[in-house]
C-alpha cells in the first residue's frame, strides 16, 4: 500500500465513522419511543441503583427480563449512573403501546450509549472495509436499533469484533492452520487475535444469545479450514497396523483441541460477564433460553402473522415506520449488491467465515418463529461486506473498465446508417401507429398519472386533460408539488401535481412485503413449472413409451382452460370450508384455512403449477425435436447413467431453447392476476398487478395515481428481472414461443 493510499484509506475510515455517528445522532434525536425501550431503561435504573449501593446480590438475583442476559442492560445502567435517579418507570404489559415519555436525561443518555456502540461497530468494520462500513452506517434497520434503547447495539458490536478478530487471525498467518505452522512471531499474533475473538464471543453471549450464531460460523469455518487431507504418514514410522488408528485419533485431537480451547475461553468470559449466572449457572441459563422457545410459539408471535420469509422482507426495504428520520434509505440496494457479491466474498479465504455467518443467521431467522425486525441485525455485518464486494464487482470495476476504454478511444456516438431503414419504415408503420396508440401512449399516460393525485373523485378533471395539464405544469416548474396523502381519497375534484415522491418511495422499499413475495412467487412458480414440464416432456419423449399422444392431449387441457376458470377450479378444491380436498379428508384432519399464509402459498403454487406446466411441456417437446440427430434418444434418462446424461447432455441442449419460454412464464407469473383475484389470499400474498387492480377499482377506492405508480414500478422491476435473467441464461433474443 503506498503512502497516499494509506492516507486515503484513513480518511475513508474517518468519514464513514462520522457518517455513521451523525446518522445515529439524528435518529437518537428523532425516533419516537419504541416498544421495549421502557423495559430496558427500567432495568438500567435499577442496575444503576444497585451499582450505586454496591448491591451485587440484587444484580445477580433480580429476575426481571431474565430471558435476556444482562450485559447490555448493565451497560445502560452504568451510563446513567452519574445522573441522579429519576422517578421509577411503570411496568406495562408487553402488548401495550410504547411509553408516552421516559425520564430525562436518562433516556437520551442511554440512547447516546446505544449510538456509540453502533458507531463503534461501523468503525470496526471500516478497518476491514470502509465501503462495507458505509453500507452499515446508512442501513436504516441498523441505525434504528443502534440508536434506540435496545439490546442490539452491544452484541452487534461484539459479534462484529469477534469475527473481525478471527478473520484477522486467518489473515496474519494464512498457513498457520496447516501442518508445519508459521513462524513463531506470526503464530503469537494469531493466537492473540483468536483470544480477542473468544473474549468477544463471551461478551456477545452475555448480551444477546442470537448473536452467537457468528461464533458458530467461526467454529464451522475453523474446523473446515483445518480439515486438510491428512499428510501421508512417513512410511518408516508406521511399523504395525495398530499405529494407524492411534495416529488418526491424535490427528483428530489436534484438529479439535484449539477450537475447544477457544470455546472454553469464550464460556469463561460469558459466565464472568453475565452476573446472573454467578448463582446456579446451568439452571438459570436453561430457564433463560427456554423462555425463547416458548415465546416463539406464543400468541403474541402468532398474532404478528409474519410469514416464514419475513426476515427477507425486512431486508428488501428500509424501515417503513419513521418518515423523515433516515437520510439514505438504500437497504434494498445493499441487499441486492450483497447477493451479487456473495461469490466473490466466498473466494476470499479470510472472509469465508462471513459467508457462513450470513447463511447460518439467515437460515436461523427463516426457521425461527419469532420474526421481529431487529433480529436482522444478526446478519447486517456480513450482508454489508458482501454488498461491498458486489459493488466492486458489478459497479466499480465495470465503470473503471468503461472509463479506461473511453480514455483510449474517446467518447464516440457512432450512428452508422443502416441500409434497410427506409424499406423497414413502410412495414413498420401500421404496427407502429397501433402500438403507439395502444401500448406506448398508455405507458406515457401512466407515467404522467403517477406524478399526480388523480383518483375517483377527480376523475372528470383527470380524463378531460387534467393529468396532462398538471404534469406539464409540474415538470416545467410552474407549480410546486402538492402535499397530499395519496392513500386516502382526496375530496378535491381537481387533479394536482404531486411529484415523483411515490415512485421514489416505491423504489426505496415501500411495499417491500409485496415486492419480496412477488419476486419469490415468480421464482418458485417458474422453478416448479419448469421441473414438472420438463419431467413430463422427458417421459413423453422417451422412445417406446405407449400412448404418449393421448397423455399429451390430457396434459395440455389446463392451458386451454381460461386462467380465470382454472382459478375457480382450484378455489373449489381448497376453498376454506367447502373445498373438495377438505371434504375428502377425514373430519379429524382438516387442512388449515387459506388465511394460514404458508398453506395458502402452497395452494397458490399448486394451482399455478397446474395452469403453467403444459406450456413448458410443449416448449420442451418442441425443443427435443430440434436436437441434433446425433443425440440419440435424449429423453432416456432412466438407468444408472441417466441423471449424468440429463445433466451433461440433455439439459445443456435444452436450456437455451427453453429459456425464452421460461421468461414468458416468469412474466406471466409476476403479473399473475386471476388466481389471486379469485383465491383472495391474505396479505402479503399479492402480486403488484393484483394490488394495482384493487387500487384502481373504484369500488375499492379508485386510487388511480397510486395504481399507475405501481404499474410503472412493475415495468421497471420486470425489465430488471429480464435483463438479469438474460445475463444469467445468455438466452439472447431471437427466440420466441407461443
Amino acid at each position, binding site marked *: 500500500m503506498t503512502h497516499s493510499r494509506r492516507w486515503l484509506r484513513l480518511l475513508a475510515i474517518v468519514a464513514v465513522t462520522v457518517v455513521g455517528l451523525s446518522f445515529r445522532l439524528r435518529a437518537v434525536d428523532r425516533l419516537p419511543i419504541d416498544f421495549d425501550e421502557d423495559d430496558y431503561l427500567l432495568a438500567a435504573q435499577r442496575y444503576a441503583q444497585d451499582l450505586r449501593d454496591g448491591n451485587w446480590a440484587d444484580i445477580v438475583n433480580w429476575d426481571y427480563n431474565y430471558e435476556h442476559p444482562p450485559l447490555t442492560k448493565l451497560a445502560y445502567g452504568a451510563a446513567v449512573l452519574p445522573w441522579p435517579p429519576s422517578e421509577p418507570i411503570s411496568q406495562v404489559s408487553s402488548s401495550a403501546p410504547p411509553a408516552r415519555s421516559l425520564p430525562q436525561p436518562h433516556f437520551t443518555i442511554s440512547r447516546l450509549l446505544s449510538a456509540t456502540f453502533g458507531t463503534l461497530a461501523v468503525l470496526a468494520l471500516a478497518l476491514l472495509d470502509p465501503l462495507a462500513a458505509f453500507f452499515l452506517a446508512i442501513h436504516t434497520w441498523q441505525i434504528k436499533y443502534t440508536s434506540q434503547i435496545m439490546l442490539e447495539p452491544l452484541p452487534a458490536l461484539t459479534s462484529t469484533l469477534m469475527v473481525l478478530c478471527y478473520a484477522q487471525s486467518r489473515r496474519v498467518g494464512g498457513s498457520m492452520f496447516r501442518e508445519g505452522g508459521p513462524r513463531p512471531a506470526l503464530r503469537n499474533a494469531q493466537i492473540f487475535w483468536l483470544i480477542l475473538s473468544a473474549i468477544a464471543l463471551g461478551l456477545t453471549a452475555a448480551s444477546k444469545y442470537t448473536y452467537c450464531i457468528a461464533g458458530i460460523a467461526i467454529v464451522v469455518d475453523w474446523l473446515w479450514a483445518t480439515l486438510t487431507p491428512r499428510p501421508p504418514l512417513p512410511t518408516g514410522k508406521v511399523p504395525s497396523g495398530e499405529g494407524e488408528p492411534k495416529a488418526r485419533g491424535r490427528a483428530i485431537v489436534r484438529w479439535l483441541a484449539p477450537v475447544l480451547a477457544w470455546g472454553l475461553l469464550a464460556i469463561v468470559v460469558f459466565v464472568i460477564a453475565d452476573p446472573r449466572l454467578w448463582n446456579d449457572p446451568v439452571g438459570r441459563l436453561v430457564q433463560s433460553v427456554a423462555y425463547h422457545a416458548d415465546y416463539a410459539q406464543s400468541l403474541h408471535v402468532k398474532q404478528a402473522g409474519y410469514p416464514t420469509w419475513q426476515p427477507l422482507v425486512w431486508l428488501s426495504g428500509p424501515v417503513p415506520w419513521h418518515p423523515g428520520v433516515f437520510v439514505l434509505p438504500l437497504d434494498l440496494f445493499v441487499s441486492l449488491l450483497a447477493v451479487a457479491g456473495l461469490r466473490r466474498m466466498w473466494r476470499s479465504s479470510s472472509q469465508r467465515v462471513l459467508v457462513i455467518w450470513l447463511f447460518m443467521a439467515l437460515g436461523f431467522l427463516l426457521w425461527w418463529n419469532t420474526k421481529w425486525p431487529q433480529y436482522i441485525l444478526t446478519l447486517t455485518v456480513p450482508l454489508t461486506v458482501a454488498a461491498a464486494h458486489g459493488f466492486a464487482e458489478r459497479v466499480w470495476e465495470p465503470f473503471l473498465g468503461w472509463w479506461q476504454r473511453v480514455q483510449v478511444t474517446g467518447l464516440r456516438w457512432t450512428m452508422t446508417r443502416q441500409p434497410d431503414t427506409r424499406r423497414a419504415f413502410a412495414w413498420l408503420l401500421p404496427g407502429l401507429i397501433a402500438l403507439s396508440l395502444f401500448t406506448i*401512449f398508455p*405507458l406515457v399516460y401512466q407515467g404522467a398519472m403517477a406524478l399526480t393525485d388523480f383518483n375517483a373523485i377527480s376523475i372528470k378533471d383527470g380524463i378531460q386533460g387534467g393529468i396532462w395539464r398538471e404534469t406539464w405544469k409540474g415538470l416545467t416548474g410552474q407549480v410546486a408539488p402538492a402535499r397530499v396523502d395519496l392513500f386516502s381519497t382526496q375530496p378535491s375534484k381537481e387533479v394536482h401535481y404531486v411529484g415523483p415522491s411515490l415512485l421514489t418511495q416505491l423504489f426505496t422499499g415501500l411495499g417491500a412485503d409485496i415486492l419480496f413475495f412477488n419476486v419469490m412467487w415468480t421464482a418458485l412458480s417458474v422453478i416448479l413449472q419448469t421441473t*414438472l414440464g420438463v419431467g413430463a416432456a422427458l417421459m413423453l419423449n422417451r422412445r417406446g413409451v405407449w400412448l404418449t399422444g393421448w*397423455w399429451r392431449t390430457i396434459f395440455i387441457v389446463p392451458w386451454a382452460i381460461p386462467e380465470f376458470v382454472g382459478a375457480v*377450479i382450484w378455489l*373449489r378444491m381448497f376453498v376454506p370450508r367447502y373445498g373438495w380436498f377438505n371434504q375428502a379428508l377425514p373430519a379429524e384432519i382438516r387442512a388449515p384455512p387459506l388465511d394460514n399464509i404458508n398453506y395458502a402459498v402452497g395452494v397458490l403454487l399448486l394451482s399455478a403449477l397446474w395452469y403453467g406446466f403444459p406450456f413448458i411441456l410443449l416448449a420442451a417437446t418442441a425443443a427435443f425435436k430440434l436436437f441434433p440427430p446425433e443425440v440419440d*434418444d435424449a429423453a432416456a434418462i432412466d*438407468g444408472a447413467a441417466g441423471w449424468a446424461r440429463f445433466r451433461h447432455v440433455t439439459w445443456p441442449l435444452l436450456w437455451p431453447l427453453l429459456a425464452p419460454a421460461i421468461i414468458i412464464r416468469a412474466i406471466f407469473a409476476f403479473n399473475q392476476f386471476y388466481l389471486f383475484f379469485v383465491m383472495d389470499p391474505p396479505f402479503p400474498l399479492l402480486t403488484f398487478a393484483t394490488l394495482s*387492480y384493487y387500487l384502481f377499482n373504484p369500488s375499492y377506492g379508485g386510487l388511480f395515481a397510486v395504481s399507475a405508480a405501481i404499474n410503472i414500478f412493475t415495468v421497471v422491476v420486470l425489465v430488471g428481472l429480464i435483463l438479469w435473467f438474460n445475463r444469467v441464461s445468455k438466452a439472447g433474443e431471437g427466440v*420466441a414461443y407461443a
Partner: protein
Amino acid sequence: MRKLRSWQQLLYQLGLAALAFFVLAPVWGLAYLAFDGGVYGWPTEFRVWPEQFTFSVFRELWARPAQTLSFLGTLRNSLIVAGGAALLSVALGAGMAYAFARFRFPGRQVGLFGLLVGALLPPVALMTPLYVLLTALQIRTTLFGLMVVYTAFAMPFCIWNMRAAFQSVPKELEESAFLDGAGAFTAFWRVTLPLALPSIAIAGLIAFLIGYSEFALGWLFVDKGDNVTLAMAVSGMLSTSNFYASRLAALAIMMSLPVVIIFMILQRSLLSGLLIGVTEE
C-alpha cells in the same frame, strides 16, 4: 436405442397416470357440480359423482346465462371481441413483425426488447389510458371498444411471436421470388406468409385466449347487458350474493369446452408452430 423393459413401461405409465390425475381431478371437482344441478352455494359434502345426474343446468344456461342474453348471445359477444382482437393484432402486427425479422434499422434491438416488456404488462396498466382514449373516441362501451382493448394486450406478443416465424422462413425463397419479378409485398404475401402460417395461427390463438378469458376490463368498460361476454358472465356468477355453484361450474365448462376442443384438434400444428418459434436467427 435401448428398449424399455416392461417394468419400466409400467413405471412410465404410472407416472403419466399420476400426472393425468393431477391435471384432471381438479377439473372434475368442479365439473360434477354442473351435472348435479342442485348445488346452491358451495357443496357441503364430499362427492365424486353427482347425486342426480342431470343436464338441466346446461339447458337452463343455454337459454339464459346472463341477464338479457342467451348463451349463444354471450358466446357471440365473446367470439366477436376475442376473434376480432386476434385478427386485429395479427393484421396490425404482421408488418412490424416482418420488418423486425428481415431488416436492419436503428432501434431494432431496443424495440424488440421493448416489445417483450410491452407484451406482458399487467392488465390494469392499460386501463385508465384506454378508458380515456376510448371515451374520447366514443367507443368505450361497445364491443368494438373491448376488441380494441384486448388488441392492445395481445399485439406486442403477437408481433414477437410472428417475427420469430418470419425469421424461420429462408430469405432465399423470397429472393427467388424477386428474381421471378415479384415485388416486396407480393413476395411477402405469396411466399413468406403462407410458410409462417402455423405460427401466425398460434399467435392469433393466444390473442384469442386473452380476449376470450378477460373480464376485469370488460366489467369496467361495458355498461350494457347486451354486450356481456362469456368470461364476464362467469365472473359475475362468482361474485354474486346468491351464489349457485352448479351454474358457475356449468358455465365455466361451457366456456372452456370450445377452446379445449380447438386445442386438441390443433395439437399437432401447435407443436409445429412452437417449433418454428424456436429457430434461432
